[in-house]
């Protein structure tokens, strides 16, 4: 399904920004990695270390950095930290506007998995934050992306709801393999969803470790996950 070669090749030698008072700060330093087709990678690191900045550079929202990024050909699907829906369009319109070629059956299936079927005609203002985040997920999947970028998609949701959405997300990623980048500060989330973890340092962010999680995502049991979590937490502590 994917073209041969490397779908995502990221090389950021340096990214800095200038504050309003004219000071120059380095945000990222020497971030380099390659991601194979269908691989799911998670960035884990302290808050404010520049995780979102990495995603913005890869999404092409900020062309101002030293380095080069080769994205897989095809469409990009993104879930931002906030849902970023158009408040003046219904749930269904929000999705169809970015995914005009999405088949009715595909959309219905998406709505089904995410529990949005009875909210099609609602406006975003009528939805809870959890539902709005589901719509943002549905939108990112509806474009059938070749690269999926998720920026803390479950932030500020309570534990059980975040867990449910996480299960729905892994179901969606499992149904149609897609190269995925996920940013999270939740190690549990990262270990459950990803094949590879990039542990990031504090600012300016560097990749401290590139951890490949053995075995397929669905084959992991709770004991494996607990062991992995302990290992990752240990590494993060050592790095500090």
């Amino acid at each position, binding site marked *: 399904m994917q073209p041969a070669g490397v779908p995502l090749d990221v090389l950021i030698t340096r990214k800095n920004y200038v504050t309003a008072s004219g000071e120059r700060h380095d945000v990222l330093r020497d971030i380099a990695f390659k991601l194979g087709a269908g691989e799911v990678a998670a960035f884990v690191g302290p808050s404010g270390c520049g995780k979102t900045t990495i995603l913005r550079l890869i999404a*092409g*929202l900020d062309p101002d950095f030293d380095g080069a990024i080769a994205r897989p050909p095809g469409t*990009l699907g993104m879930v931002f930290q906030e849902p*970023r829906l158009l408040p*003046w*369009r219904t749930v269904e319109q929000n999705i169809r*506007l970015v995914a005009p070629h999405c088949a009715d059956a595909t959309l219905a299936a998406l709505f089904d998995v995410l529990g949005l079927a009875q909210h099609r005609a*609602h406006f975003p*203002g009528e939805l809870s934050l959890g539902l709005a985040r589901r719509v943002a997920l549905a939108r990112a999947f509806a474009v059938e992306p070749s690269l999926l970028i998720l920026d803390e998609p479950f932030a500020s949701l309570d534990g059980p709801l975040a867990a449910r959405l996480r299960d729905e997300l892994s179901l969606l990623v499992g149904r149609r393999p897609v190269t995925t980048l996920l940013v999270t500060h939740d190690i549990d989330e990262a270990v459950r969803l990803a094949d590879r973890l990039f542990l990031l340092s504090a600012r300016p962010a560097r990749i401290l470790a590139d951890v490949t999680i053995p075995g397929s995502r669905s084959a992991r049991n709770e004991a494996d996950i607990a062991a992995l979590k302990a290992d990752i937490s240990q590494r993060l502590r050592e790095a500090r």
Partner: protein
Amino acid sequence: MIRLVSFALFLATWWIGSLFAGARLLPDPATVFETILAEARSGALFLHLGATLARVFLAFTLAMALGTALGLLMGRSRLADRLGDTWLLILLNLPALVVIVLAYIWAGLTEAAAIAAVAVNKLPNAAVTVREGARALDPDLDEMARVFAMPRWKSFRHVVLPQLAPYLAAASRSGLSLVWKIVLVVELLGRPNGVGFEIGIAFQLFDVTRILAYALSFTAVVLIIETFMVQPFERHAARWRSA
């Protein structure tokens, strides 16, 4: 209901006023209404109302289209804002009468000169309002449209325009009333028909009844446009807010 009471109160005040001022200075509502009917029967009323309405429509459309484009450009680009700001200030403060007289001198007493003069009067107003709207556009939604590679027109139609809608509504509200007032001046000074032309003639004859008959007829037309076109459109555009 309250609207009806308020309207009745207006008629009563007018009628009492006419008792004090005398029929020559302020004719009572019934006399004015009879004149409206007489003018309507002769067809003159519709001819002049139609001519004025056509000019209002053309000048309004022209001013809103150009003003919106200019406002968007100035709200989005700092360079355009700096370049255009002085021009806008000059246009905003140039009296309508000066623009009209100059337009007639330079372009002759033509329809094009009349409509252009009105549009130039309204344009800076629309541009300033839309510029505020363009400055307030949400960069987050813009990024969303870019990430999902929405085509330009689609993103303008579904992301930008709905954000501008309140500003466009404000600009058209004030625009419609401003434009029709200036159209009357343009007609008075250099057109052979229209409400302004009729009022000019009535002024020469000191015919207050006729002035009121034409002015009120056109006010009624504007009220109808406002109630049956502008307000339903606003309600439609704002339906997501009621959620």
